[in-house]
């Protein structure tokens, strides 16, 4: 039973009510995600974050939103007018559409699509167009560089993202997000497909322009990238899109990999428990993303691309192949899980091994060899 039908008996009204609810929810969530990010990162950086507006700074997001609404909407003189003005909408709308397909609890969502997973990445992939338009239309070279970087990056990282998710969808045998969640009653897919989860997280960081893949918006290089010329409400639409996409991807990840509303006790304890499960899991993923942002520096463009094309894509296709073999021969899931864990360990281990070539400060102490100075 859906609440629209219960009250009005009209399906389109029901849909509109649901959409309104999701939009309002999204706005509130975005406001508090920005607040949460500032608080979390502030803690990582030994600061307090916002404290002044409201108790513990809780109203900071609202204050920011009000300020942005009141700001002047500036358009540079040599901006391409229509391209510039429509770009924020084109980044924002796909993200908002994606929220329509996500299940928050059993059959709770705007629409339960049979092609839910496919819908999510097909539609989210569209917001690159808005980003590119913002980059091209601003008439600013930083924005241009940012837009071009974003385009190259998002197109590249879509491939491992989609392939890794397809590997999971193969196991599940469906693209329906509700069905995928329902399937994880005994174990979340992350236990069976950790490698896919790692690839998914990496690609999502990149799709969302989060550190260490925040190259299109790199503050210290191109001063904010594609939205450098935007102000006021249009700028806040980019921000809204960014955080809404963050939230959408985390719910998506929670549903596909962490068991969504189902694991654990999702069936037994009712819808409120399912809702809590989904939200807590998505918040965990968001926290992970914030954590990464607080610690990691930024990759360079060529390193980013070669990481995608030389590592991620190969690994994700290998994963797809392995999953296919297991499904074809009907081998047991335990073995599949073991193979996958081994793969994930090898993948992360390789990255770690590259990192531990850390030279010690003690080795740097000079030999006075060139200068010919004798130590006193």
């Amino acid at each position: 039973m859906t609440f629209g039908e219960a009250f009005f008996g009209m399906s389109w009204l029901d849909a509109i009510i649901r959409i309104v609810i999701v939009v309002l929810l999204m706005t509130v969530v975005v406001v508090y995600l920005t607040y949460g990010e500032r608080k979390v990162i502030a803690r990582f950086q030994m600061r307090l974050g916002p404290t002044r507006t409201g108790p513990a700074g809780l109203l900071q997001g609202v204050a920011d939103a009000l300020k942005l609404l009141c700001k002047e909407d500036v358009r540079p003189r040599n901006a391409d007018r229509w391209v510039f003005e429509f770009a924020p909408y084109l980044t924002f709308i796909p993200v908002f559409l994606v929220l329509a397909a996500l299940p928050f609890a059993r059959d709770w969502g705007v629409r339960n699509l049979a092609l839910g997973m496919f819908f999510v990445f097909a539609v989210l992939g569209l917001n690159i167009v808005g980003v590119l338009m913002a980059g091209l239309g601003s008439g600013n070279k930083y924005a241009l560089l940012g837009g071009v970087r974003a385009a190259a990056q998002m197109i590249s990282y879509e491939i491992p993202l989609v392939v890794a998710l397809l590997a999971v969808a193969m196991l599940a045998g469906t693209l329906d997000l509700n069905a995928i969640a329902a399937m994880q009653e005994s174990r979340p897919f992350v236990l069976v497909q950790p490698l896919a989860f790692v690839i998914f997280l990496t690609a999502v960081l990149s799709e969302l322009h989060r550190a260490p893949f925040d190259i299109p918006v790199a503050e210290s290089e191109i001063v904010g990238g594609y939205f450098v010329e935007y102000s006021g409400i249009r700028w806040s639409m980019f921000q809204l899109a960014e955080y809404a996409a963050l939230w959408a991807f985390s719910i998506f990840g929670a549903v596909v990999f962490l068991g969504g509303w189902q694991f654990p006790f999702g069936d037994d304890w009712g819808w409120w428990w399912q809702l809590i499960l989904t939200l807590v899991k998505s918040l965990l993923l968001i926290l992970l993303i914030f954590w990464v942002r607080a610690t990691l520096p930024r990759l360079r463009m060529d390193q980013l691309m070669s990481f995608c094309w030389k590592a991620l894509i190969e690994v994700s296709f290998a994963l797809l192949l392995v999953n296919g073999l297991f499904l074809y021969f009907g081998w047991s899931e335990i073995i599949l899980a073991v193979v996958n864990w081994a793969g994930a360990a090898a993948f992360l281990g390789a990255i770690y091994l590259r990192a531990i070539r850390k030279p010690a400060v003690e080795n740097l102490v000079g030999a006075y060899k060139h200068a010919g100075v004798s130590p006193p």
Partner: protein
Amino acid sequence: MAIWPEERTAAAGDLDTVDMTVNVGPQHPATHGVFRMVLTVDGERVVGCEPYIGYLHRGLEKLTENADYRQAMGWWDRTDYLAGMCCEGAYVMAVERLAGIEAPERAEYIRALMMELSRINSHFMFLGAFGADVGSFGTSFTYAWRERERIYDLFEEVAGDRMFPTYFRIGGVTMDLPANFERRCREVLASIRQGLEDLDGLLTGNEVFVERCRGLTPVTPEWAIARGVTGPMLRATGLAWDIRKAEPYGVYPKLDFDIPTGRQGDVFDRFHVRLAECYQSARMVEQCLEAMPGGRVLAPKLPKTLRINEGELYFPTEGTKGEYGVYLMARGGTQPYRAKLRSPSFCNLSALRELVVGTYVADAIVILGSLDIVLGEVDK
């Protein structure tokens, strides 16, 4: 759309694309002050770099020539404003040498201590800002800032001012250390050590950071010497050249410290050498605390008005960025006839174009960060 390029190059056989000019600075988050460079980029590649300086020019040398020897000190403070003590130390020692004044030993120890703390302060600024240049979202910055605040607090307790203390005097220092100085200084040192560990852990072992910095623009000692590059940048190439050892001044001959050197002079080595230098400076501060003699802090019988009859002197010191050399020429009177600063940031910056061309835009920012310039010193 008017984003189209002013310049174009057509390399033979290459795709005949159009170059774009990107203006970085003077208001840019990563130029460390009012520095401007105009990058000509071919896509993401930098094919040209034109640095512009002078936004912060205050005429230090001319001002010095028109002021009393003691009055001028305040301006020298403001050259390398991240390490004010080092600058005033260099100037004060140069004048002392020119005038033949000897500072008491306690004053010399205090100076060395303060200068090394200043060096740590400046290097912390570098470590924090460099992390931000490479792209970490301010975490390295706040880590570094915590220690910088502690050092500044200590400076305030000693001299009454944080950034521009003008604490040194010709012939000693203004006043003696406060009563609980040794305890406070050891507290700060412990905190500094902790902060260095933190930054080391945050940056040095970070795969992304290493990937960004290692092997980026390695240079040889010969190359560096030919361009007058000094300081940590020179030492990163493997040449252990440190004025504190090579032409010692103050109490440095009595202090035991090592010169950290890099291996290939790349960006990572520059970062690492500075990190290691902080440990050495902390060692020196500790030794100064141990060996601090009692006694006066200002030489007795200093003349009320300092007059220097005839003389000329180039006095190099190891500033935080490199060879910070003070040239003074006296022809009688209370003012120097000619003053000149050999500013290390300026000389190091002159290597920028050669380093940057051929790298990526993102690298250009990192390379600029690794030069560790301070604009007050570049523009004087």
